[in-house]
């Protein structure tokens, strides 16, 4: 499903964010990516949907060779991936509902279906009442949940979430996690970067630990680690 072979990433300013990363994630897996701040988790994630390009190495996601993709194939590839961005990346000029609907509009679904799915997903993340508000009128956690809703709405085959519970209280965090587990049960691959020790330790899923750009640990039924 997701395959990285000897991937290196050095940013334009010379910062080396990833070194010699090789990982293979199978369809339907649930993988936590953990590591200290600045370790390279987001970089690792951004490579998968081609927000960043690797300096070296090759990446395959759901049959797409990310590095060999023709320009026109990029959007097609991205529609198979639901991304929760660390900085939300909501469209400030659109309401909550429109933001979520956008992921469906790009695949030209009928307006009725859009309406139905959007209502459903907003219900799931507990934002039905905020449907017609703009992102700047929401609290941090509410914005984060809009991001989650947008990633889920078009039922992608992979969900990549970068710190999706950073601004959520434990209760909301758990309910988002339950959501992810439900879609994972239906076969969706999930890759989630997180700092939430409680969640990682409770879930007993595969854990990828990145430190200073290298994969230091790749453990089935792993723990957060780094006890202090």
């Amino acid at each position: 499903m997701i395959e990285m072979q000897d991937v290196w990433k050095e940013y334009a300013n010379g910062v080396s964010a990833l070194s010699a990363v090789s990982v293979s994630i199978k369809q339907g897996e649930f993988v936590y990516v953990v590591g200290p701040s600045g370790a390279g988790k987001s970089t690792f994630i951004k490579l998968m949907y081609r927000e960043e390009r690797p300096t070296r190495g090759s990446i395959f996601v759901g049959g797409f060779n990310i590095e060999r993709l023709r320009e026109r194939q990029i959007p097609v590839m991205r529609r198979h991936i639901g991304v929760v961005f660390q900085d939300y990346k909501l469209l400030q000029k659109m309401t909550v509902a429109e933001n979520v609907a956008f992921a469906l509009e790009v695949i030209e679904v009928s307006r009725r279906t859009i309406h139905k799915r959007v209502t459903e997903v907003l219900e799931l993340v507990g934002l039905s009442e905020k449907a017609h508000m703009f992102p700047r009128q929401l609290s941090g956690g509410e914005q984060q949940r809009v991001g989650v809703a947008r990633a889920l709405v078009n039922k992608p085959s992979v969900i990549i979430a970068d710190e999706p519970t950073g601004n959520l209280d434990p209760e909301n965090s758990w309910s988002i996690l339950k959501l992810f587990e439900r879609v994972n049960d239906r076969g969706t691959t999930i890759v989630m970067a997180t700092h939430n020790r409680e969640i990682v330790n409770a879930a007993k899923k595969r854990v990828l630990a990145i430190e200073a750009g290298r994969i230091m640990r790749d453990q089935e039924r792993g723990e957060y680690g780094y006890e202090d």
Partner: protein
Amino acid sequence: MKIRTIGRHTREGFKNLFRNGWMTFAAVSAVAVTLFILGGAMILSLNVQNISVNIESQLQVNAYVSSSYPQKHLSTLEASLRSLPGVRSVSFISKDQALKKMEKLLQSNADLLNGIGNPLPDEFVLQAKDPHQTAMIANEVRLTPGIDKVQYGQSVIGKLFTVTTAIRDAAVVFIIALLVMGIFLISNTIKITIFTRRREIEIMKLVGATDGFIRGPFFVEGTLMGLFGAVLPLAALYVLYRWLVQSVPLFPPFSLLPWASVLDKVVITLIACGVFIGIWGSVISMRKFLRV
């Protein structure tokens, strides 16, 4: 692209106009003012050109009939002059009329002319279809039997053409330069507004939108902004120009063209600049933000 997507782009385009409120206003007004200047300059240019043409068209050839030419054949002579290629009009001034003019010229001393009879010849006044052919026609007229002498302001005609040609060339250069600068200003404004929305565009791309899908609403928005930005100055120019034509007292060769004869050029240029540069500017400047 499905029909519903076209509908969606149209809706989004309209929505964006309102949601970007202040920015839309700033962009449309910048386009409108630029096009107002461009349109005004075009109207000015067209009129200056027209006046310079009017001045040229006042050029004429004076052909003096030889005193030995039989009076009764004058109409034959007139006909033969009229049939010369390139001649637009021929009019006749009899020696009597010419004398009256002369007397007027001499005023109180005119009585001095009494007693010597009329020394002046009959005269034909010709105008060329193309004022630049005046000299050529004058030469042909000179060869016509019955014509004794030809005058056409030889000494100034060269200078006159230099000036009128210079004015017309200047007007064309001026309008082309303004057009180029106007296009630059409009596309620059559009670029800046697109620039402020680069994050938006990048996010759309990251969420799986194709370039075309992202461009859709911008296309609608650009068209509407360009249209507003062109229609407003057109309306203003129309009102202003009508007022000018009515209330400024001018006389030939200084006259204003009727609105109808500047209309087509101005309307086409303004709408084209507004709409096409608007769309083109946004498509071009969007390109770099679509590379995500």
